[in-house]
């Protein structure tokens, strides 16, 4: 076992468990169908809820008449926004995104105004879902329609219809800062700005300048499991919620705040989750089932349909972006200017800050300016989506890098390496970098056989792009370890397991304790059963919850050393723990394995149970890079992927299969975003393609094998060198595919999706 001493990293690779590929602890239950998901919850007397949604994108609610619906046999209760206590503006931390609790409540149920088609207005609980559905048709809502605004550029114009009368632009120079209220009213909720050096001077030094505009459309995370929640409000005032979420404590906090009750009265039980990708870090249903249960005295479940997931939850932003970069003849970038306007949807809070922080992240640029606008429009309120805001920004920057390299006659990877970012260089936001693998990833790409092999055939092309992300973490994780008498441990956390983190965290405890991974029983428990733990997001669980588990493991060793000292009648400081064996310094014949000592706990002071928490953060900066070969059918505009290779600096891959899974999954989501995915809005703001039939995510037949290359440049802030790997993987694909399409047919695609129709149009316009 490696010696683990605080934050120091000792030679990764010398581990027994870290870096191996054990079978996941939750695997058997999941593949045999025994694992329980939110929709599996069945309680005696349970009612079913359905939600009435707005048919208009922008309208005042004049009146709501529910009398006919209430009269329908089987209908038991109705909840409208009038049932929410009056809420003040108040900030709430959702782990990946900040939220305002009043606006969150208004997104859950519209209050006075509906702001997008699909905006929830009320929910009905009935004895079965068909009755609830029928009752929805009996509700009479009168609206006064208002002019909706959908396009981000139009929404920013002076005479645009306004969504929120009192909305003013907040100016920030720090992504999570409070900012300064400019007092300017309109649809622009925020401007984030990063500035460094002198732009004019930088551009005057460049021999070549490329400036391009880009647009992207609203896209959804597309998790397979729709949102679902079941609530039971007990007569003693305790509320229990079974839900599909990435963060049980976040849901507890938000639900309690919206309902105006103490957090301690709410227990959230996180069920197994069928995907989230950031979209399940906020609440839609939990306060509704709670109130419906309070009104009826019965448990109430609401499960969304796929259409509701598309129309009523949070996709990520459509954008308008401009990128201008200059470079010298020898390939040094002298200046960069990035303008980002992101649609927030109906309420402020687009992920433009993420885009602003990351777009220029892979490049050392002394003169730069990034302006990021957060703009409300009459579309679904956006939520986090895997590296929120960052894939869009990369789609604006990476094609410009490609074009600069092309015009300079340089290899695009060589060009990137010349401008690579190293330890001590500053991120666009000004934060200095610790050691990270920017250049290491770029060199691995340049030297890879895929990059160097010949690509023959007409209409075929190869593209590359990189993606940068600064993972923070540190929102808080807790872990408890109970030592069993047979030398196994129960490892208890509150981190919902989306990406195999039960096992990845368990491996870290096993490594420290010198026990087998099969001797760890990792469990994810409810909010009453473990210390506060932030949401599973920000690529932080293997890192943050891993650190909490490591700290708890140290405590276990300390306590067990004390027990060994008792048995051997020596001072605890004389006990050394190495390679899973407790040894007495006083008499090296006195040795005991972890298992042996575990069997002697009851006689030496009772059970050993240790809890720890961690808020250090520092998941770290990260580079991912993708190489893709495409073939374009110039007659139909269809793009087929021939070959795909992904690279990432994982710091240290705790469980390489899970890292590879993240890399492949990120690539495939990006491929969908690149080629076909978009909310197709009709003129009145209806999403015309609210089903998986017409919201075209890739199927297995659309993908080549996605190869993976893991680079390990250890993260100094984690004992085993881990970096989070969940999100950076989604940043490069759209840009990489755009660059490949250019290589294939000579057309620079400046909009997403690069669907067959869009390619045909670009080819036509290019003639």
């Amino acid at each position, binding site marked *: 076992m490696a010696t683990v001493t605080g934050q120091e990293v000792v030679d990764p690779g010398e581990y027994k468990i870290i870096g191996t590929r054990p079978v996941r602890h939750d695997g058997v239950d999941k593949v045999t169908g025994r694992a329980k998901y939110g929709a599996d919850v069945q309680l005696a007397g349970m009612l079913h809820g359905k939600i009435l949604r707005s048919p208009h994108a922008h309208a005042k609610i004049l009146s709501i008449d529910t009398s006919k619906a209430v009269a329908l046999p089987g209908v038991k209760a109705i909840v409208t926004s009038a049932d929410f206590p009056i809420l003040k503006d108040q900030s709430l931390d959702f782990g990946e995104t900040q939220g305002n609790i009043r606006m969150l409540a208004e997104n859950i149920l519209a209050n006075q105004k509906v702001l997008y088609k699909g905006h929830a207005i009320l929910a009905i609980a009935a004895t079965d879902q*068909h009755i609830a*559905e*029928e009752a929805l048709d009996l509700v009479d809502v009168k609206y006064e329609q208002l002019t909706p605004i959908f396009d981000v550029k139009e929404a920013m114009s002076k005479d645009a219809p306004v969504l929120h009368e009192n909305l003013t632009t907040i100016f920030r120079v720090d992504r999570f800062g409070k900012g300064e209220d400019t007092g300017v009213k309109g649809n622009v909720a925020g401007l984030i700005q990063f500035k460094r050096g002198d732009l004019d001077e930088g551009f005057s030094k460049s021999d070549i300048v490329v400036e391009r505009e880009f647009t992207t459309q609203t896209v959804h995370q597309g998790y397979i499991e729709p949102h679902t929640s079941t609530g039971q409000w007990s007569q003693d005032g305790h509320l229990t919620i079974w839900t599909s979420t990435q963060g049980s404590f976040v849901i507890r906090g938000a639900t309690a705040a919206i309902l105006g009750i103490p957090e301690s009265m709410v227990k959230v039980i996180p069920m197994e989750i069928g995907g989230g990708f950031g979209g399940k870090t906020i609440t839609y249903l939990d306060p509704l089932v709670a109130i419906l249960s309070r009104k009826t005295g019965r448990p109430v479940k609401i499960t969304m349909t796929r259409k509701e997931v598309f129309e009523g939850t949070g996709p990520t932003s459509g954008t308008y972006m401009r990128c201008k970069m200059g470079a010298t003849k020898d390939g040094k970038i002298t200046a960069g200017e990035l303008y980002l306007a992101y649609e927030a949807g109906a309420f402020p809070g687009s992920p433009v800050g993420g885009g602003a922080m990351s777009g220029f992240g892979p490049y050392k640029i002394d003169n730069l300016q990034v302006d990021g606008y957060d703009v409300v429009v009459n579309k679904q309120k956006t939520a986090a989506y895997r590296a929120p805001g960052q894939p869009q920004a990369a789609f604006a920057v990476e094609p410009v890098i490609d074009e600069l390299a092309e015009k300079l006659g340089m290899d695009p990877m060589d060009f990137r390496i010349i401008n690579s970012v190293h330890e001590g260089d500053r991120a666009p936001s000004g934060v200095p970098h610790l050691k990270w693998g920017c250049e290491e990833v770029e060199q691995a790409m340049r030297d890879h056989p895929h990059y160097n092999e010949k690509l023959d055939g007409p209409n075929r092309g190869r593209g590359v792009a990189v993606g940068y992300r600064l993972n923070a973490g540190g929102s808080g994780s807790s872990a408890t370890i109970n030592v069993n008498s047979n030398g196994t441990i129960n490892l208890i956390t509150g981190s919902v397991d989306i990406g195999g983190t039960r096992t990845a965290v368990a491996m870290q405890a096993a490594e420290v304790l010198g026990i087998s991974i099969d001797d760890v029983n990792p469990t994810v428990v409810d909010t009453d059963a473990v210390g506060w733990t932030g949401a599973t997001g920000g690529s932080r669980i293997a890192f943050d919850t891993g650190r909490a588990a490591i700290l708890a493991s140290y405590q276990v060793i300390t306590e067990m050393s004390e027990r060994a000292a008792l048995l051997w009648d020596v001072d605890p400081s004389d006990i050394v723990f190495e390679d899973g064996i407790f040894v007495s310094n006083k008499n090296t014949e006195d040795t005991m394995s972890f298992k042996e000592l575990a069997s002697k706990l009851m006689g030496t002071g009772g059970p050993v149970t240790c809890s720890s928490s961690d808020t250090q953060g520092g998941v770290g900066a990260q580079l991912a890079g993708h190489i893709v070969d495409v073939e374009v059918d110039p*007659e*139909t*505009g*269809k793009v087929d992927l021939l070959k795909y290779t992904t690279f990432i600096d994982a710091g240290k891959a705790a469980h390489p299969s899970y890292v590879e899974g993240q890399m492949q999954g990120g690539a495939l989501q990006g491929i969908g975003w690149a*080629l*076909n995915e978009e909310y*197709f809005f009709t003129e009145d703001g209806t999403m*015309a*393609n609210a089903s998986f*039939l*017409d919201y*075209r995510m*890739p*199927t297995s*037949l*659309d993908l080549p094998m996605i190869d993976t290359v893991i680079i390990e440049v250890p993260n100094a802030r984690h004992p085993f060198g881990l970096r989070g790997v969940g999100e950076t993987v989604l940043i490069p694909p759209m840009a990489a595919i755009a660059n490949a399409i250019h290589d294939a047919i000579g057309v620079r695609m400046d909009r997403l999706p690069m*669907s*067959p*129709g869009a390619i*045909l149009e670009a080819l036509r316009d290019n003639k």
Partner: protein
Amino acid sequence: MQEFEYVAPTSLEDAVKLMAEKGPKAKALAGGTDILIQLRGGRYQIDRLVDVKNIPELNQFSCSQSDGLTIGASVQNYKIYESSEVQRLYPAMVDCASLVGGIQVQGRATVGGNLCNAAPSGDTIPTLIAESAQALIAGPNGQRTVPVEEFCTGPGRNQLADGELLVSVNLPPVKPNYGAAFLRFIPRNEMDIAVANCGASVQLDESRQKIVSAKIAIGSVGPTVIYCIEASNSLAGADANEASIEAAAAAAQKAASPINDMRGTVEQRIHLVGVLTKRVLRIAISRAKGE
């Protein structure tokens, strides 16, 4: 979804009776891959769903050089594309039956259902038209036969009167020097609705250099699948070459009257009709030549 009655008759006579009793409030159920979704989506309010999978006439499935191909209305797609005789004699039916939905859908869905559903994008319909298929219909007044190109009357609408059922589609025997093919354009590689599709057949003369007759049908570019009469006629007597193919494709484009929607634009669809018609005719001619 509202309550309705479910019945599963075992004779054609009973089925017709059960349908006729409820008139427009009765719907037939074969694979259910369209009707169940439509019922759930509230497109129809019905009183009775008549399961037609237990009726012998609707399960007929035979294929031979002498008698042609008979596909009962309850015969699932997978049976069609897995049949070696269909593969040999009617490869265009394999082209289309094998790409309706995914594997699971092909295990339930039927060609008869695809035709009755009368979607402009119905993937088996252009081939049926190109192959000169006849639809056999049973109803309270007996049986009648309708050429497939006349079966669909609008999006989701067909020739069936209240109480009538589709019994089978019947493709005539194939002659020597005959070939047919089908292609669909979708943005993905499976599990999608056609942006445009095209089925075509050609009968070559003995020299295999001239086209005696041809039938071209295009889908997703109008209210129903469109039988392109002028494009088809333009090939009668023409040389089996690129110039004829180009001319037929241009004529097919003129027959298209698509709309803009989430699946494609008017311009893209008309363009695709040209591309697909050419590609399909090349395959059909190649098959007719026995290549």
